[in-house]
């Protein structure tokens, strides 16, 4: 098993005809993911790559194809609308890749999704991968922009705010012959749909996940919140890394959410909270996999 998605998950892509959406829909198809529909308003009735039907609305796509997950690649100004359209159509898992969405748009989206059955991952995230059994992990479910070939099917869960740092951890595991159950990028924005803690709970309940790598960064208090929960409830070995120990306060380090303000959100505080919870904290980003494997 895995969390959030399986190789059977039926995926639709919102913004499938845009440059980035098209490229990654293609890569997901090549990976063996069940990309069953695309949505681009005004292009309903066409086909993507002569294969995947395109619809005008998410509701039509869901009704016709039974898609249960969506990947969103629409521009930032339209992303909030796209997320809520997917939720309205009953899509269970919405993964929003779009970077640069106004923070207040996400505040409204989060409020609108409260109590809804839809789970949002992201925005500003690399997406979700459950590796498959084929060559270079093909045959898995890839939603988003992560490179498929770096993965390997296995039993480590990876959750991270950062894209390339996720790839770094996954590749370290794969190079050591250790596979992953599911890899989740939750995104670098201050308001996101799914937190580190949400994903940790899913990994904790997944019998196929035997160990967890959690990658955080400066800003906010989500890592501290996760640490408190790990201490009480987590039954699996967890290794962590926090990026930004050398970042100056008050500066936004690329991600809108990666900022130390008012003396809060420092790497030191997060590392201390993780250690206190029994998490093995990697000294450097080069040893994330090694740090976990020593615990397993």
């Amino acid at each position: 098993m895995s969390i959030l998605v399986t190789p059977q998950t039926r995926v639709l892509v919102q913004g499938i005809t845009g440059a980035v959406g098209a490229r990654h829909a293609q890569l997901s198809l090549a990976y063996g993911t069940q990309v069953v529909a695309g949505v681009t308003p005004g292009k309903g009735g066409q086909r993507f790559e002569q294969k995947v039907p395109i619809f005008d609305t998410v509701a039509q796509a869901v009704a016709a194809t039974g898609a249960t997950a969506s990947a969103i690649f629409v521009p930032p100004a339209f992303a909030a609308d796209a997320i809520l359209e997917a939720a309205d159509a009953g899509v269970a898992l919405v993964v929003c890749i779009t970077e640069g969405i106004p923070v207040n748009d996400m505040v409204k989206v989060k409020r609108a999704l409260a109590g809804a059955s839809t789970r949002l991952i992201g925005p500003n995230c690399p997406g979700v991968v459950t590796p498959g059994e084929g060559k270079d992990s093909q045959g898995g479910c890839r939603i988003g922009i992560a490179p498929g070939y770096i993965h390997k099917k296995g039993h480590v869960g990876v959750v991270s705010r950062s894209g390339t740092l996720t790839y770094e951890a996954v590749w370290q595991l794969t190079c050591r012959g250790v596979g992953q159950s599911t890899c989740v990028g939750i995104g670098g924005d201050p308001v996101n749909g799914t937190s580190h803690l949400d994903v940790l709970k899913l990994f904790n309940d997944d019998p196929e996940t035997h160990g967890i790598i959690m990658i955080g960064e400066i800003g906010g208090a989500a890592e501290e919140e996760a640490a408190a929960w790990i201490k009480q409830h987590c039954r699996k070995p967890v290794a962590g890394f926090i990026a930004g120990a050398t970042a100056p306060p008050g500066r936004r380090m690329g991600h809108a959410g990666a900022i130390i303000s008012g003396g809060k959100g420092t790497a030191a505080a997060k590392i201390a909270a993780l250690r206190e919870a029994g998490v093995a904290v990697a000294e450097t980003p080069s040893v994330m996999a090694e740090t976990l494997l020593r615990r397993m």
Partner: protein
Amino acid sequence: MNIHEYQAKQLLAQYGVVVPSGGVVTTPAEAQAMAEKLFAGGVSRVVVKSQIHAGGRGKGVFKNGVQGGVKVCASLEEAVTRAEAMLGQVLVTKQTGPEGRRVSKLLIEAASAIKRELYLAVLLDRGVSRPVVMASTEGGMDIEEVAAKTPERIFKETIDPAVGMLPYQARKVATALGLTGDLLGAGAKLIQGVFKTWWESDAALVEINPLCVVEGPGGKEATVAVDAKIGLDDNSLYRHKDIQAMRDLAEEAPLETEASRHELNYIKLDGNIACLVNGAGLAMATMDIIKHYGGNPANFLDVGGGASKEQVTAAFRIILSDPNVRAILVNIFGGIMQCDIIATGIVAAVKETGLTLPLVVRLEGNNVGLGKQILKESGLTIISGDSMADAAEKVVRALAN
């Protein structure tokens, strides 16, 4: 993006927040005209305030020796003298760093007869993903210090984005600030205006410190936003043309502005090892690992997910513009980005810039074999790093030699 105090007050005034009368000036003549107008209007004192994007102006010192970037003046002559002494001079405060900032604009406004100083701010509470209004009776002080020493003196009201700030919530905040009688209604209206400014402008932070209870005409008390600071959410600027026009490039580091023109994310730091990385998290982690091996990063630089050859060249130019740089570390995890394209960009950039500093390159991911081959066949002296740790160690060692 940050804006000046006078711009913040313009925005606040649009949403009905009471601010002192006055305006911005850029020359001594304009300063004289503004001060004359205020004194003629019956004001007994005016305040001359340096406009820079940094706090601590009042206690700041100009490089020409003049003390204080904010001065209260009791006469027209004094106001003009002060303005002349400040305009064009470099002000150093605890937030500007030793290099200071040149003051090219002054805000001249009526000085209020302050009876009490309060604190009011609106920001995002990340824990609940909702706006929060923060208020304290301890105005005019460093709020972080208040939060650390006397957290009970900070009042917080969380706002439901579905309905916005309701009048009763504004009254709750006003009451927590000790505003009663006639001041309760006026204070609540001001508080709602401050929230509205935050929400409608897509601000990251609106801070009124101090929010003052002042003695108005006829001895009647009133609430006035005496100082104001606004930071905007960069992601939302596209829908605020009026606020975009408030950008002051003179307040931004020139290299950072140049980087943003090439859609690169660059932040200058104090060290001497420049780094060029794809992805914000990996870029931060690269700085961390340089430090771990005893080096000091010269910058944060994220070239993004799909950097072109032109962007890589621009990135090299930018990091080499920093005179402190003694070595360079390139760390690319080519997930989707192809390592051969990056390698071609690196070779072109090294040739174009005539680089002589030690360069360590760590490439991983898509087409990595081809990428390494391009670097090798270029004939350039490029040190190859096999992992992040190996690359960081090598760049620190290269610097030591």
